[in-house]
C-alpha cells in the first residue's frame, strides 16, 4: 500500500429499478429473476472479501433528486449524508447513504483544476440509480451500506449529454485525483446504467445483445474504442436510454489500462432492459 488513495476495484452494473424491487419484495428466487441474481453471486462473494474504505458511485438521477429546471452535465455530492428519495411509492427500505465530504471536496478541487466544470451538490436525495447498484453489491446491508459514498452525477437524460469521450476523460482525471488524495485508503468505483434499452417511441422494448456483449468485452480491453462512439451511434445501438452506458466509461477511465476481470454476467430482460454486471480488479499484479 502507498500513502495515497488507491482504486482497488471497479464494478459496472445496470441500475434498473425493478432489480431493487425484486430484492425488496423477496422475489430473487422467482423463476424469471433467478438467473439474474445467480449471476450476481460470484461478484458479491468477491466484493464481500474486498470492502473498500470509500465507494464512488457514478449514476444519473431519474426525476427524483433533480428537477429539469437545472440540468448539470456533471455533478458531485459533498454532503455527509444523502437521503433515499421517495420516487412516488415511498422510499426504498434501505439505509440512507453516508457521504465522505473530505474526499468529495478533494476530487472536486482536482477535477475543476483539470478543467472539468462540475456542479457541487451540498444537498441531494439519491434514487434507484445509486441505491440499486449498492444493492447489487450488498444485498443485505443491515443498518448501513458497507462504506461511505461519493456520488457523481451525469446528465444522460437531456440532449446534449456529455460525449462518451468526455466521460472517459473525466474518468481518467478522476483516477489522477484519487491518486492525489493524501490518505492511505482504498476506493471502489461503480459505473452504473444500461445496458441496451429504450422506454418510449415506436422502438420501445429495443434490446441489442450483440452490442451489449461487445460493450461488456471492450469495457475491459478497449475502452478508448467505446469512448469514440457518438451519441447518435450509442442511441442507435443501445437505445435512447441505453446511452447511459457512457457512465461506465467514467468508472473505467479511473482504473489502470490493464485490469483483471473477476466476473461478468448478462441477462435479458430486467423489466424493459438488458442487464449487465462486470467486476474488475484494479490492483496491479494482484491475483484475480
Amino acid at each position, binding site marked *: 500500500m502507498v500513502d495515497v488513495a488507491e482504486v482497488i476495484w471497479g464494478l459496472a452494473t445496470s441500475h434498473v429499478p425493478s432489480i431493487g424491487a425484486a430484492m425488496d419484495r423477496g422475489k430473487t428466487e422467482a423463476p*424469471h429473476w433467478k438467473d439474474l441474481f445467480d449471476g450476481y453471486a460470484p461478484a458479491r462473494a468477491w466484493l464481500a472479501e474486498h470492502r473498500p474504505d470509500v465507494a464512488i458511485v457514478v449514476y444519473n438521477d*431519474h*426525476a*427524483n433528486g433533480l*428537477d*429539469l*429546471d*437545472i*440540468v448539470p452535465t456533471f455533478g458531485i455530492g459533498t454532503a455527509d449524508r444523502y437521503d433515499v*428519495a*421517495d*420516487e*412516488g*411509492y415511498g422510499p426504498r427500505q434501505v439505509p440512507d447513504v453516508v457521504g465522505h465530504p473530505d474526499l468529495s471536496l478533494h476530487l472536486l478541487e482536482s477535477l475543476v483544476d483539470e478543467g472539468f466544470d462540475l456542479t457541487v451538490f451540498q444537498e441531494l436525495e439519491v434514487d434507484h440509480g445509486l441505491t440499486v447498484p449498492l444493492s447489487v453489491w450488498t444485498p443485505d446491508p443491515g443498518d448501513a451500506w458497507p462504506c461511505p459514498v461519493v456520488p457523481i452525477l451525469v446528465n444522460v*437524460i*437531456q*440532449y*446534449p449529454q456529455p460525449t462518451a469521450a468526455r466521460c472517459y476523460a473525466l474518468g481518467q482525471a478522476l483516477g489522477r485525483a484519487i491518486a492525489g488524495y493524501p490518505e492511505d485508503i482504498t476506493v471502489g468505483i461503480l459505473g452504473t446504467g444500461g445496458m*441496451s434499452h*429504450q*422506454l*418510449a*417511441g*415506436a*422502438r*420501445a*422494448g*429495443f*434490446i*441489442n*445483445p450483440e452490442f451489449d456483449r461487445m460493450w461488456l468485452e471492450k469495457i475491459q480491453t478497449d475502452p478508448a474504442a467505446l469512448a469514440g462512439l457518438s*451519441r*447518435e451511434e450509442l*442511441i*442507435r445501438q443501445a*437505445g*435512447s*436510454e441505453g446511452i447511459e452506458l457512457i457512465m461506465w466509461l467514467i468508472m473505467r477511465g479511473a482504473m489502470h489500462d490493464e485490469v483483471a476481470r473477476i466476473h461478468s454476467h448478462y441477462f*435479458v*430482460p430486467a*423489466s*424493459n432492459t*438488458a442487464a449487465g454486471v462486470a467486476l474488475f480488479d484494479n490492483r496491479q499484479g494482484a491475483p484475480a
Partner: protein
Amino acid sequence: MTATATPIPTTIPPLTPTEGTPMSTNETGGRLTVPGTPIFDGQTSRRGLRLNKMLMSFRSADNRERFSADEAGYCAEFGLAPEQTQAVLDRDWTAMIDLGGSIFYVYKLAMMDGRSMQYLGGVFTGMTEEEFAAELKSGGRRG
C-alpha cells in the same frame, strides 16, 4: 432550487414542435436521427417543463392525493397548456411524450394508475401489455 416557490412563467414554451425537434414518439428526433426514437432535447424539455414539474410533484403522497381529487385543477396550478392538460386527463401517453414529457416523469403518473413500464411500452408500440412483455421475455425487440 431557490428558497421560494418558482413562479409560473408568463410565457409558455411553444407546444408546436419547432423545426428539428421530434414530432411524435414514432418520428425521428432533433439533431439526432434514429428512427422510432424520441430524443429529449432542449426544445422538447422547454416545451415539457411545466408538465414535467407537475409529474415530478407526484413524489409526495400529499400531492398525489390533491391531484386525484381534482386533476384539471392541479394541472392548472402548474400552468400546463390545454393540450398537456388534456393528454394528462385522457392518459394519452403518446401525446404526453409528444408535448415534452420525459418518460421518467411520465412514468410517475403511470405508477399512480398502477400501470407498468411494460404497459407503456405496449401503448407506444401498438401492442397489449402481454404482447409487449412477451417480446421482451423472448429477448427483446430488434429494430
